[in-house]
Structure formats: structure tokens, C-alpha cells
């Protein structure tokens, strides 16, 4: 049986969004909007951090696609005072016009594109506090309507789910559910290189993972076993003949897979079955090289080949400045020292006995 956990962890490192350039851009644009609202004497807003970046499931886009950041702008206004949400959306649109050369008024958000290949999605909310405990939030859509929304509750729901996977954290602090969601998102991007209503959204894949994924550790150690977790997950997803249905846990409680056509839903389920088949074949393959290579079929080139794993282990150990020949010489010398050590014990991990 191939142990591919290191491969999965390196794959995760290869695809996750890291660093803060998006957060910096977000802060700049928020300042632009705040300044505009102040100057025009319009109501201010509070920031609601939301979206994949905040949930720790953001991934790098493929090819020319943009990566994104979602920001909620929660205006302290009664929706009854602004029955047409487009009025409030226009404040934001006018504020960001000219900030970059491409601003789009989309369904649930205002999308500000940056030339550097990413965009910030601004989501507008009207917030009405009837008491300290009670907060009413409505999302302003571009058809002028307000829809009840609970982004903070959704965040709490997601954070609680992530917390249940606490024992599966690895180096960077991502839990198994965050890693598995990212794997699926990359798989999804490979299946659907462009935006399409038949493409499951990132939040749909995350909510599906919350519903179906179980924390999975290796039988022999406390190490996460992402491969086994995904196989079991695919089994759960494809178990029923009916459509995949996952209701959002907050208003409007819609099925997050609801927009996918029946034909595409069948293809999606077939794709999960196919993925399961390939994952299982990799799991039982005793040849790690071949197993890793087979997973590139579904996850693409960012899934590391065995050679890359060895290279990453060695470079992590030796520092990245050394040349290959120096590294190899050092390894040879270390091995030669080890071969001269007599009566060496086998290290153990016994912290309890």
C-alpha cells in the first residue's frame, strides 16, 4: 500500500493561497470606499471578512484565471429606508470607479478586477440592530432586492466544522477538511477551466465536505490520512442515486448545488466515482512512483511526482542554497557515517509508557 500523505501535503502547499497581497489590496480598496462615503456624507460600513480566503480554503487559480477575495460591507441602515438595494450598491460602485479599470456589477457582489490577476468581490449588506443580541442582515442584490443573510453565522458554522478536524492539522495549520476542500477545488478547476453555472462553487464544495467528510488518521499512527479520507468521502457523495443536495445552513437555505443541471449533476457524480476509483487504485498500489503519477490524472501537475517529494525532503533538510552535487556528497557522507555506527538503537515514540 502506498503511503502518499507527504505527496498530498506537498500538493496542498503547491495549491493553497498564501501570503497577504490580497489582504493589502482589500485594505486599500476599503479605504477608498470609506473616504468616498465620508466625503459624500453617506452612512459608513463595518467589514465582514468572508469567503474562501478567510475559511482557509483558497487555492491558486489555474492558467489565466483570477484568484479572489470576498469582503462583506455591512451598512448600518434599515433596508426599509432604502427599498431599492441598487441605491446602496451605487454608492460603492461610484466609490471604486476609477480605482481600477474594470469594475463589474454582478449578482450578489461588486467585483473589482486588478491587472495583477485577481479580483475583490464586495458584498453589500444592510444591518439593523434591534438590540445588542439581535442583528438583522440583508444582502443587497443587483436586481434591487434585499435577501436575508447571516454571513457571520455561516462563518461560525464553518469554523466549528473546521475545529472538529483539529487533530488532523499539519505544518501550515490547515486541517484535513481544509486540505480536502482545496484538493476538490483544484480537481473542479481542472474539470471546468472556466466559470459555468454547472461548475460547483467553492462554498458548495466546502459545505459538501462539512457534511460528508470524516476526520481520518492512519491506522498505524496519528498522522492524517488524506487519501483514505477522500476515498471515504467519495463513497459518501456517490452513495445515493439522487442528486447531491446540500442546503446552506443559513438564509436563504438554498441548495448550493441547485443551479447545476441534471445532466451535469450526473457527470459530477460520475466524476466523483471516477476520482474514487483512481484514489483507491493509488492506495493499493505498492509502487509509490506509479501511485503518485496516477493521481496527477485527477489533480494535475501540482500533485507532486515521487521525485519532487524526495527533492523537497532533501532541500528542506539541507537548505535551498546548496547545489545538487553538494547535497548528494553530503548524503553520501552521512550514510557512510551511519554505516560505521555499531549497535545503534531503533528510535521509538513512547511518550506514555
Amino acid at each position: 500500500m502506498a503511503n502518499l500523505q507527504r505527496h498530498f501535503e506537498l500538493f496542498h502547499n503547491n495549491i493553497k493561497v498564501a501570503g497577504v497581497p490580497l489582504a493589502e489590496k482589500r485594505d486599500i480598496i476599503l479605504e477608498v470606499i470609506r473616504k468616498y462615503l465620508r466625503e459624500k456624507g453617506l452612512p459608513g460600513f463595518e467589514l465582514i471578512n468572508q469567503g474562501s480566503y478567510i475559511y482557509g480554503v483558497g487555492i491558486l487559480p489555474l492558467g489565466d484565471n483570477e484568484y479572489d477575495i470576498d469582503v462583506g460591507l455591512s451598512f448600518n441602515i434599515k433596508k426599509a429606508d432604502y427599498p431599492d438595494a441598487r441605491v446602496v450598491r451605487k454608492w460603492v460602485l461610484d466609490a471604486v470607479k476609477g480605482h481600477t479599470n474594470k469594475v463589474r456589477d454582478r449578482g450578489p457582489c461588486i467585483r473589482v478586477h486588478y491587472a495583477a490577476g485577481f479580483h475583490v468581490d464586495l458584498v453589500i449588506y444592510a444591518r439593523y440592530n434591534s438590540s445588542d443580541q439581535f442583528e438583522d442582515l440583508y444582502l443587497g442584490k443587483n436586481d434591487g432586492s434585499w435577501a436575508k443573510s447571516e454571513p457571520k453565522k455561516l462563518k461560525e458554522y464553518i469554523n466549528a466544522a473546521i475545529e472538529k478536524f483539529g487533530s488532523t492539522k499539519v505544518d501550515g495549520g490547515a486541517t484535513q477538511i481544509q486540505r480536502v476542500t482545496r484538493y476538490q477545488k483544484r480537481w473542479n478547476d481542472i474539470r471546468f477551466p472556466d466559470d459555468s453555472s454547472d461548475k460547483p462553487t467553492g462554498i458548495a464544495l466546502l459545505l459538501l465536505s462539512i457534511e460528508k467528510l470524516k476526520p481520518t488518521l492512519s491506522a498505524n499512527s496519528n498522522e492524517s490520512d488524506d487519501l483514505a479520507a477522500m476515498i471515504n468521502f467519495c463513497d459518501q457523495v456517490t452513495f445515493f442515486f439522487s442528486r447531491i443536495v446540500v442546503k446552506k445552513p443559513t438564509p436563504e437555505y438554498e441548495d448550493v448545488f441547485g443551479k447545476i443541471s441534471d445532466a451535469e449533476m450526473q457527470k459530477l457524480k460520475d466524476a466523483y466515482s471516477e476520482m474514487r476509483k483512481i484514489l483507491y487504485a493509488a492506495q493499493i498500489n505498492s509502487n509509490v512512483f506509479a501511485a503518485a503519477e496516477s493521481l496527477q490524472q485527477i489533480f494535475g501537475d501540482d500533485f507532486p511526482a515521487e521525485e519532487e517529494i524526495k527533492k523537497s525532503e532533501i532541500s528542506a533538510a539541507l537548505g535551498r542554497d546548496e547545489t545538487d552535487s553538494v547535497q548528494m556528497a553530503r548524503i553520501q557522507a552521512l550514510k557512510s557515517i551511519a554505516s560505521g555506527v555499531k549497535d545503534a538503537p531503533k528510535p521509538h515514540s513512547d511518550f506514555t509508557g
Partner: protein
Amino acid sequence: MTSPDDFLANIENDLVNNLPGWKIENGSSPLAVMGSIIIEKDGVTLDAFEVRVQLSPSHPDDHPIVYETGGKIERIPDQHISADGSACLFVEDEASRFWTEKTKLSDFINGPVYAYFVGQSVFAATGEWPFGERRHYLAGVLDFYREHFKVSDPVVVLEFLKVALKSPVKGHWYCPCGNGLVLRKCHLPEVRLLQKIVKRSRIISVVDQVSKALAPSKHT
């Protein structure tokens, strides 16, 4: 009986003569020494670890505890190191191979401790443990006993350990390995050897842990 001053002087001498650069840590109790494990070949330093070795509270009956203090090794079970940096050099059950009450501290550090860090260095560079590794936790302990008795079934291992706890062990008892022979014609030497090399208290603890692990799980 060695006086405390002689004891300290002996350790100091041992360090000066056999572990240059190593020092006794001020004020630690039990006594601890600190220094570097340098892994070098032909005068070239390939790797180095900052290490602290503290005598056991039950010194010299039990082996010293070894800590990697430089933070170079990730504190995870797969690295055979605990969260506080203490190194898991071997399964406790085979400790007598590497430490007796007569073992000099320098022999311990230049022997199994040095080997441990060579292993760490090779693992960091290649992903392989040059001397092998024990499986984590109880599984690794069981493997030690499996090798000792040359049996695979953990139930049989448990029976052997129970026999080893008896005193005296009678040669006419049937051997737990199940081949139908009496102990004196079968595994008696292994049982006797085990009684010599593993402390009774440790065997009791392992019997307890293995019994719990083998007990059928209760479903409600």
C-alpha cells in the same frame, strides 16, 4: 559509596576526557550536562545538534533523558521526539542494552545518543532511518517482544509476559508459544533473559497496556 563531590568530579573528568566542549549545567537537579553532537567526516561538519542530557531521578538505575534543545527537529512522533524535545532513543524495554548502572555518561552520549542524532541527520536528508525505527507507541513495544520471543501473535506475547512476571518460572509449564513443548524445552532461556533485562515494573505496565489494547471494544 561515592560522595557527592567525587560523583561530580567523576562526571567532570569524564566530560573533559571524552566529550570536549560539554559542560555541567549550573543548578539543575538531577544533574544535567550540555553540549553539541557534531556529525563530521574527514574534518567537515555535516550536521550539529544542541543537546542536553539529564540524569534520571533514579540514577544510576535508569538511563539519562536526552533533549534536543536547538529546536532543529520537528516535535512530532514521526521524528521520534516528544513535544518537550526529549528524544525517544529506543523502546524502554531494551534500555538495558544501552545503559547499566556502570555505564559512563560519555559512553552513553557517544554511543546510542550519537547514533540517534546520526539517524536524525540521515532521515532529514533522505527520508530514511538508517538503523530502522520502531513503530509508534505500544506497537513498537510489542515488536520488541515479538522479536525477543520470535513470535508474532500479540496474545502469545502477552502470555509470555505474564509468565515472566511469575517467580520462580517452572520449566515444566507449557510454553505459551503453543507448540506443545514444556518451557525448559522451548522458550525458557528467552523468558529468563527477559526477566534479567526488563524491569518487573515495566513488564507489569506493558501487560496492562497490551491487555487493554487486546480487550474487545465495548459498543453501547
